[in-house]
């Protein structure tokens, strides 16, 4: 008798436990976060619509996807313009200027062609690609690996704009996103940045030690109806165009439809939103 009661209690206990935990499991598995961003969209299009395409191919998508087009032709031979772009960003976003590669923080900067486009041949490259540096910034990918790996959703893709944003309040500083980013676009605050900020912009906060930061496509300026700082910096030559990649009437789309453009490392399937004319 005693034994049977024990057995009954055991089974009842196990059943109750399973019953209690089932909703939690269901809730966890049904969260949209389980499917990494964008996959859902691809599924909507269905297999029937899927066309054979190369590694860099993309399905046409809905909604706003902000992107940038850098017309390097207008910047060749003008290293001062590249500097002007970086300086504008530094000033607007209170970016510290720390000496040396180890601790430095960069949002937009310039590098040689073979660093920026390692998947494109630089053997016997033209004098112009050899001698000029190219602008580098966060690509605000449509399939961002940094967002996929972040354990706290501190970096996330804003569904309304397609921008990959950082929530500095939530970042735990694990730097997994820096591992995930195949473009080296992210910087970590190894030290307190404030002593290294030359001039404060009162309209934007600084960052604290121990968080990761990167380009935010000037979310705070667009809220005020302004263009991103880098776009504005080279407005005279019109070297950088910013707009909605999914809007067929936008200026950026008009140029994309007309000109041959390239992206950085398209074969990785990250779907960068920054395009280059070289």
């Amino acid at each position, binding site marked *: 008798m005693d034994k049977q009661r024990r057995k009954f209690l055991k089974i009842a206990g196990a059943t109750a436990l399973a019953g209690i935990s089932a909703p939690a499991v269901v809730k966890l598995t049904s969260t949209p976060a389980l499917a990494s961003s964008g996959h859902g969209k691809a599924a909507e299009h269905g297999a029937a619509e899927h066309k054979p395409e190369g590694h860099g191919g993309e399905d046409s998508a809905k909604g706003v996807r902000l992107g940038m087009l850098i017309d390097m032709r207008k910047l060749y031979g003008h290293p001062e313009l590249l500097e002007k772009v970086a300086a504008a960003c530094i000033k607007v976003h209170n970016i510290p200027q720390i000496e040396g590669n180890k601790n430095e923080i960069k949002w937009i900067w310039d590098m040689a062609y073979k660093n920026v486009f390692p998947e494109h041949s630089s053997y016997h490259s033209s004098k112009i690609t050899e001698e000029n540096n190219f602008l580098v910034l966060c690509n605000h990918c449509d399939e961002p*690996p940094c967002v996929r790996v972040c*354990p*706290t*959703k501190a970096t996330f893709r804003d569904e309304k704009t397609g921008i990959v944003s950082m929530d500095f309040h939530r970042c735990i*500083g694990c730097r997994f996103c820096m591992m995930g980013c*195949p473009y080296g676009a992210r910087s970590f605050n190894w030290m307190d940045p404030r002593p290294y900020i030359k001039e404060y912009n009162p309209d934007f906060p600084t960052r604290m030690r121990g968080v990761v930061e990167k380009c935010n496509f000037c979310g705070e300026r667009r809220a005020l109806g302004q263009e991103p700082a880098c776009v504005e910096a080279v407005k005279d030559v019109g070297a950088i165009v910013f707009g909605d990649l999914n809007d067929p009437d936008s200026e950026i789309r008009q140029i994309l439809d007309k000109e041959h453009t390239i992206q950085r490392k398209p074969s990785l399937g990250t779907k960068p939103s920054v395009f280059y004319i070289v």
Partner: protein
Amino acid sequence: MIEKVFKGNSNYWMWLAFLSAFVAVGAICYLRQFVYGMYLTGMGRDLSWGLYISQFTFLVGVAAGGLMLVLPYYVHNYKTFGRITILGEFLAIGALIMCLMFIMADIGQPLRGLNMILHPTPNSMLFWDMVVLLGYLGLNIICGWVILTAERKQVKPPKWVYIFVYVSIPFAVSIHTVTAMLYCGLPGRHFWLSAITAPRFLASAFAAGPALIVIACLIMKRVANFDAGREAINKLTTIIMYAALINAFFVLLEFFVGFYSNIPGHKHSLQYLFFGIEHHGVMYNNLVPFMWGSVFLCFGGLGLFAYMKIKDTGTDLMIGIGCAMIFIALWLDKGLGFVMGGLAITPLEEIVEYYPTANEIGITLGIWATGFLIVTLLYKIAVDVEHEVEA
């Protein structure tokens, strides 16, 4: 049972004092890092993971290595491991606590660590790693403690604990698989982007973990009058040999893929690790001696074991040296080479070499010492319980 850690001979207390000294140094170094910031480490913008994460990766393997004792004993009813299975479980506890400490040492905002739980993110492998590590830690604490308590009372362990024992088997595999997935799912990190990463991690874990247990058994035979038994040690060294061979085989496969396909991304890290790589007229080769050291120690250890098996001889000292050689070889391979090799070639096609700072090494040693301290205390309990039962 905890009272057993307070009774010991002078050697025991000397050893604890020795470890505590390192713990204290590590704590001071960590305070410095906490107050002044992580620029005190050798990590930087291009090389943003370092010693902490690589030690974490290696120690997850040590924790998973206990499986090589649990599996034969509980699944195949291999009685010879009866006396030492508990050592595997207790080693896993110590190694997992070290892992968690290394993670805490590595993150820039440790006070926000709970965000991992407050904002659970199932698409992040780090989230799952936390889940399986905490799960495996809990399982080992439950299984180890309940089974040891039963042994002390000289009764059979309660049946329910076997559920946890059997669950812990897939968990042991999962901790190292998920840790491998931290690395092998990252686009643009060619050296890590390899499906063989997880099996390679498991193979090296199944050699490194048991190697450490064998060394611990041999030491305890001398200082604590605890004999694991000749047969158990021999079986363990066989397991170590096979696992180390499989790991070496997997590394060679990486070489084949890299060099035969001739794809630079797959080749560069191996070149950097084993031969040095030239970039802009500068030679980068600071890990070459370590990697070849790893190769020689691995094959040296394997040769020593093979000799002992063929001639059917071998003193404890020879076994100990063999295990130490394999353990160090695998530490160099995974605790140093794997992480640094993948990182040295940056996404912007530059090469950055990593040199840990003294502060960073201090913290690392402190965490290792803490782990050894925990394992010592747990082994003290386990061995004393065995003595008590025998008496």
